[in-house]
């Protein structure tokens, strides 16, 4: 019996879900893997306490977001640009939406990107997102509003994605 067996079991079960969060935050497979692995490496040493007292997954998600925003305060690595193709026969609308959204997310400030992921993908409430980000609810509201406004500005072709009532309530 290895003392890390409990950690291994947890990671095996949850790593793909956590990886999806990391990937949405970073937009890059290598960076996402690096982000998640560096957080997990820190979790290893606290595993006994976390597994006994807390909610490891919530802790890891919070650490992912905080480490990501900390990374992104530093000079950003550039990613190869990929021209967004024009609407055409070879791409369906959903594929095109993903490509445009991916590029638009890359142009958001770190916290804005994080708040989009937390509020509209993780479906966290404003209070929950504030807890994860370590800021006030008011700050989450303003960051969300700014992020959506910026998405609308830099990618007007995404307007249909951002016009659902739930989103309009946040940033009309």
């Amino acid at each position, binding site marked *: 019996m290895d003392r890390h067996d409990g950690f291994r079991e947890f990671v095996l079960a949850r790593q793909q879900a956590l990886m999806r969060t990391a990937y949405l935050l970073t*937009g890059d*497979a290598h960076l996402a*893997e690096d982000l998640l692995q560096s957080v997990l490496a820190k979790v290893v040493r606290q595993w006994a306490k976390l597994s006994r007292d807390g909610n490891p997954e919530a802790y890891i998600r919070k650490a992912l977001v905080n480490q990501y925003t900390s990374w992104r305060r530093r*000079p950003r690595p550039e990613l190869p640009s990929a021209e967004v193709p024009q609407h055409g026969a070879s791409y369906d609308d959903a594929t095109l939406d993903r490509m445009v959204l991916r590029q638009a997310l890359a142009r958001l400030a770190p916290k804005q990107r994080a708040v989009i992921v937390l509020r509209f993908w993780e479906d966290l409430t404003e209070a929950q997102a504030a807890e994860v980000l370590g800021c006030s609810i008011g700050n989450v509201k303003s960051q969300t509003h700014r992020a959506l406004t910026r998405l609308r500005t830099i990618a007007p072709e995404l307007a249909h994605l951002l016009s659902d009532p739930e989103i309009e309530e946040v940033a009309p």
Partner: protein
Amino acid sequence: MTRLRQALDGIAAEAPLVNLADAAIARHRRRRLVTTSLATVALAGVMGAGGVVMATPWRPAAEPAVQVAPTAPTAPTVPTVPAVDRAAVVADLPEGPVGRLSHAYQATCETGCDDAEWRVVTSDGKTYRVPRALARTAGRPAVPVAISRSGRALAYYSREAQAHVVRDMETGAEVVSPVKVPEAEIPRGAMLLVSDDGRYVAFDDPQEFGDYPGVLIDTRTGERTMLKRDFEPVAIKDGVLELVRPVKTDLWLMPVTGGGEPVRFDGVFVRFSEVAPDGRTVVALDMTGTPKQEPVLTVLDAKTGKALRKVPAPALAVDLMPTVWLSDTEVTVRNGAPGGRLYAVDITTGKARPLADHGEVLHLTLPGRATSS
């Protein structure tokens, strides 16, 4: 489910499959080992040489890398070269002199980034491949290169030597660091920095929250100095290593021989320039409070910690990175990411004039700037 959620789901579904448990445990063990080793080294340093650890002297591969007299470097000329023609056949960096460098970048990944390679561009626009400079390791972000602020020295990690190498671009001479760093232990997101005369190399891993303290190496004497935790190297100029503790925000102008002490600023500042020609002011981006609608460069006094003035630069996008000074009043500012648009910003007026556009290249590395992958 909103349509935004559906699109985000689609992106999230593209996340690669991973198996990270054992890798994370191995990384945890490696970090613990490094911490223990560094604690031992630090203790030895305290008992012996007052914090400075003597390492094996550097072994010059041919002759000392750079034999420039330690005079005050002139402001580098930022060439207004067009974006590199990546379709052209690019020659390997030859053995001899090629002249000072304008910038470096990684060739665009065409087959999943396994074929990534570093390329350097000289001040007169010639581009060379640098196959000996490791570009990335399996499953890890890019391994950085660094160019000194004058463009004369290039530092890179050599897979063959399993160590960093400093090359004098004007003579072609190279020095191999005696400090071996196994490829598997290259700190993730490592920052690399080389001084103008090629004598000092600093590397650090800012993405690890100080778990790997940075190191400053004197290439002539072999002295190796551990940098204080939480501080990351920004620039080396005139024998002074500029260290920043992000967010707090502290700035430490540490002579390469040691000494000095951090100064704390009132506010949150990021992306510091090198020290201005006056030897005491720096420019940084003000990140205090809510995000700024327009970028605000702040001139800070590195001796007293006072903010001397705010310089709005409304003509530029928010994503700014001040780097080297061109004169007493103009600082080079890189604008936009991705991309390599450079401007000279007059810190008395906020006016920006374009200097160069290196296009949208991968991991653009500019002279005088600590680079991170």
